[in-house]
């Protein structure tokens, strides 16, 4: 009896969503190739036992966790080796954003799960299920807001770097730099 291996559209879609976590510049440059590479390597794990598939996803998430930090750092803290004022404020904003995001998530989780009635007295009449849902919703919003801020920052830096690169290429071409 032959075993049919379905085309891994679902996992590829999941990975395509995960790729959105990378800075737009990196994603634009290598996103399609990374997706292709994921698609190429996925069936090997899929054809094996479930444990192998689990291991494949474990390695994928590990790879994601290892490379995400470096790419965001490259984008925000060390933008393309070009000295701009934007680099200074990127340096100064990364830590506050990270701390703010962490406090929002932790604060919401803590407030929702432990201290809700004390912090939000108007929620006293709510059931535990509603409190939990509200807590999850506000945590989600905090994460989304932090990611959105990072995304906007990344987009601004990418746009600034791109225009500066075009300028430097033009200057080199015109022979106006030494």
């Amino acid at each position, binding site marked *: 009896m032959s075993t049919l291996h379905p085309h891994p559209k679902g996992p590829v879609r999941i990975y395509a969503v995960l790729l959105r976590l990378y800075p737009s510049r990196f994603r634009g440059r290598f996103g399609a190739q990374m997706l292709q590479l*994921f698609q190429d390597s996925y069936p090997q794990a899929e054809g094996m036992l479930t444990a192998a598939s689990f291991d494949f996803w474990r390695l994928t998430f590990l*790879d*994601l966790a290892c490379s995400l930090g470096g790419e965001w750092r490259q984008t925000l803290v060390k933008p393309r080796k070009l000295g701009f004022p934007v680099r200074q404020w990127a340096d100064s904003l990364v830590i506050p954003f990270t701390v703010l995001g962490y406090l929002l998530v932790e604060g919401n989780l803590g407030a929702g799960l432990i201290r809700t009635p004390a912090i939000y007295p108007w929620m006293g009449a709510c059931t535990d299920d509603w409190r939990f849902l509200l807590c999850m919703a506000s945590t989600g919003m905090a994460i989304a807001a932090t990611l959105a801020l990072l995304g906007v920052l990344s987009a601004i830096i990418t746009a600034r770097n791109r225009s500066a690169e075009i300028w430097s290429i033009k200057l080199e071409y015109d022979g106006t730099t030494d």
Partner: protein
Amino acid sequence: MKKRFNTGASAAPAIDLLPLTPAVFYILLVLAEGDRHGYAIMQEASKRSNGSLHLGPGTLYAAIGRLLEDGLILELDERPAPELDDSRRRYYRLTDLGSRALAAEAQRLGELARQARATRAVRELKHA
């Protein structure tokens, strides 16, 4: 064979780029054998390291991005064997600077290994 325009190629001597990370060392090692695409690099690096090195898409392309910026490798426009290969894949090639960096790193590692072998602790382990 045409190559893509690379604005980030560095003129730094190979020695300035050392030490290389294991991922970068294996990527250069694989490309020293010839032009390869990402999937082939990933497979060969895993094979050469006896499975100890796992290069996922994120790690691989992050390293490739930096190697392109430093001018150690370049991205090719043409594919070596069109009838056999997938046109969606991008191929990479080792540059002269990349070859020199690889040789310098191999020499550095060789020297480290030589010094380690000269120590009593390693000699005793070897005989045990």
